[in-house]
């Protein structure tokens, strides 16, 4: 594509306009000159013949005077008239194919003859040869008559032809005038269109750019590129605009992405803070209970020793298991925790239950070996099982109270089901437990213990997913709490962190 500068384009436009005007004017001038030449040419022969005839008449009249007077002065006058006549007769007499020009040619030869005859008369008159000059004079008159005859024929022919020619010329003149008018009209329209085209060509990309700028101003960076023009400046502007648009778009995208990352980080931070807050609460609770555990451990140890000393082995064993459970729970708050640790704590808890209630409660744990290594928040399974024992089987007189903890794979997640055959969990309690986090309400100063709600919140925070816990009904109509653990047990937040 040939790109022209604005300057050269404007210059070209003016040049084209000037050229069209020049050609139009030259054309009009040429036709006018041609017509003038035609009209002049129409009567050129008549003008020539008219000049010749007037001089011929003068010679004839001067000859008459000379013949009458025979004076020297009259002879000189006649001589001058003859010279004047000779001047009207061309030496070169080309043959035309036109009858009238051939007759004009004949006239010239007749004039030559006439001049000779006049000179003959003059000579005879000078010699006073009366018979001779009378006869010669008669011959000159005959020649003169012949010349006049020819001239009249030419004029008569011309009159007929000129009438037709004049009408034809007038018609052509009108035709050409109309033609000129149309040519000029079309030329003017052409100029207007060229100017319009130029303006359009110049303004269109600017208008387009203006529209695109407005669009970008509204935040729409997806507007199409401005096509490159064959005009250099416009092309440069379009290119610059397109580059600027892309650059702006990239910058804005980067800023957005950065903001997104920052927001994500902030969210993560908030979650961490929340987690820390929960942990602190738990820690506080634990610390508060540390005082008690130490006292409890000491008391329990004392109780164990006393029971041993009194040979109350069963009591000693029970208290020993209780002490081990407490120790396990306290220890799990201080170090990294896995699902197998949680299962271990649950075993201790179920042994205690068995000691207390015999075989009323059957707690089974089925975990695939791979699941045991999953990082897992502490104190999750025990509260859930405890929840079943306390609430699910409340007021149950029968001894068939079963709680099953079962791990399985579902897609990309591990599912950990805690199901019982108790009363189930009511809708209100379920909604309350699964409600979104409300820091103001969910972390009261005074802990009421670690319940279902606490489990739900901690699971969500730990795995950074809202569907970490779901509550439903087991096949036997009891409660079914389903914990959703990412495969490998890596919390979502940490996964993101790894990705980043």
């Amino acid at each position: 594509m040939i790109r022209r500068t604005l300057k050269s384009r404007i210059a070209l436009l003016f040049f084209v306009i000037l050229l069209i005007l020049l050609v139009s004017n030259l054309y009009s001038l040429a036709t006018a000159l041609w017509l003038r030449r035609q009209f002049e040419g129409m009567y050129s022969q008549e003008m020539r013949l008219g000049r010749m005839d007037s001089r011929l008449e003068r010679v004839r009249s001067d000859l008459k005077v000379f013949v009458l007077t025979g004076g020297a002065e009259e002879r000189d006058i006649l001589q001058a008239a003859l010279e004047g006549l000779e001047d009207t007769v061309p030496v070169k007499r080309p043959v035309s194919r036109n009858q009238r020009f051939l007759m004009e040619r004949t006239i010239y030869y007749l004039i030559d003859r006439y001049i000779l005859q006049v000179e003959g008369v003059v000579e005879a008159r000078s010699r006073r040869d009366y018979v001779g000059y009378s006869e010669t004079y008669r011959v000159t008159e005959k020649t003169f008559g012949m010349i006049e005859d020819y001239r009249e024929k030419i004029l008569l022919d011309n009159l007929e032809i000129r009438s037709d020619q004049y009408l034809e010329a007038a018609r052509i003149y009108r035709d050409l005038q109309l033609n000129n008018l149309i040519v000029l009209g079309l030329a003017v329209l052409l100029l207007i269109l060229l100017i319009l085209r130029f303006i359009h060509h110049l303004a269109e990309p600017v208008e387009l750019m203006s529209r695109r700028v407005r669009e970008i101003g509204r935040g729409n960076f997806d507007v199409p590129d401005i096509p490159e023009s064959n005009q250099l400046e416009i092309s440069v502007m379009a290119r610059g605009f397109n580059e600027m648009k892309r650059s702006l778009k990239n910058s804005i995208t980067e800023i957005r992405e950065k903001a997104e990352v920052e927001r994500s980080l902030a969210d993560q931070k908030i979650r961490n803070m929340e987690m820390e807050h929960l942990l602190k609460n738990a820690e506080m609770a634990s610390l508060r209970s540390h005082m008690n555990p130490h006292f409890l451990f000491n008391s329990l140890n004392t109780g164990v020793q006393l029971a041993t000393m009194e040979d109350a082995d069963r009591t000693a064993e029970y208290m020993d298991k209780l002490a081990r459970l407490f120790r396990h729970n306290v220890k799990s708050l201080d170090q990294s925790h896995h699902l197998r640790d949680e299962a271990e704590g649950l075993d201790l808890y179920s042994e205690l239950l068995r000691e207390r209630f015999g075989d009323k409660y059957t707690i089974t744990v089925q975990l695939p070996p791979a699941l045991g290594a999953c990082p897992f928040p502490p104190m999750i399974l025990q509260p859930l099982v405890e929840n079943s024992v306390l609430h699910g089987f409340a007021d149950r007189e029968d001894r068939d109270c079963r709680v099953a903890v079962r791990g399985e794979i579902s897609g990309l997640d591990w599912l950990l089901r805690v199901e019982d055959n108790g009363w189930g969990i009511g809708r209100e309690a379920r909604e309350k437990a699964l409600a979104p986090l409300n820091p103001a309400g969910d972390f009261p100063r005074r802990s009421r213990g670690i319940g279902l709600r606490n489990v739900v919140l901690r699971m969500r925070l730990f795995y950074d997913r809202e569907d970490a816990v779901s509550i439903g009904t087991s096949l036997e109509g009891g409660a079914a709490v389903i914990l959703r653990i990412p495969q490998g047990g890596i919390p979502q937040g940490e996964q993101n962190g790894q990705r980043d």
Partner: protein
Amino acid sequence: MVRHRIINALILLFSLGVAVFFFRALFIMLALGKTEPMTVSPESPGGVHVMLLLPPGEDPFFRDLLKGARKAASDYQLGLEIQRPHSMEDYLAVARISQVDGLALYVTDEQALVPGIDRLSVENIPVITLESDAPASRRLCYVGSNGFRIGQRAGELIMERQSGEIRAALIRSSRLFEKASRGEIIYYGIQAAISGGDNRIVDNVLSETGILSAEETARRVMLRNPGLNVIFCTSMIDTIAAVQALRKYRPRRDIRILGYGSHRIIREGMEEGQVAGTIRRDGFTTGYEGIQILFDALEDRYVPSARYIDFRIDLPGRGRP
């Protein structure tokens, strides 16, 4: 984009319009330049000046002859000056004075024109006679129909069509034949054809110029020759006049006319049985070949002393005998 295309299309359209009208003007001017020149353009490529002298009048034969002559002049690039004077004598002198390169003429007055023709020949200006000859002159060539053969063919036609004794009259145009031998030649031709028995030409007259005078001549011929049964006319005017006279004064169909031309009245006369036939000479060929032979003479080619041009006789109901 659509607006852009429309503007471009209009620009193209108007440019074409300008070009069309521009060239139209050019063509008008060029076309006019090729027609009858308004301006002076005397130059001729050949540079040969030929004069053609014909008698005045509106005879179709001369009209065709002029066409043929003009065509030949155009073909051979000659400058052709045509004059149709009442007196050709002076124009022979003019031809000599104006140093024409050649002359062709229809001889109306042999006696008067022979000296002029001879003088031109002496000055090496070739002279051709057309249709009417001056055999006694030093003309170079005669181009035209054979007058004797025309008379003979007419006589034969009379013999074919007319039963019994033939009483014929010959009406010659005074303008064309009064002082030319051509009328006499035709007369001899007729006579040669009808000789034998009691057939004879009972009248041989010159008609006056003009249709009324010619009609009067025909009437007089009919009145003074009671046994007349054939009139032979040597011009179209005389033939028309004879037909009209016959209709007015001799409604009986006992006189047949043989004449020249194909005028409406003559054609009607043929349909009505008054006209037995008309002689049609080929004016165009006569004119064309006359100028052609003149050109040959100027080019120093062989020129015959006579070039006879075919004629034909139109008969009622068919074109040629």
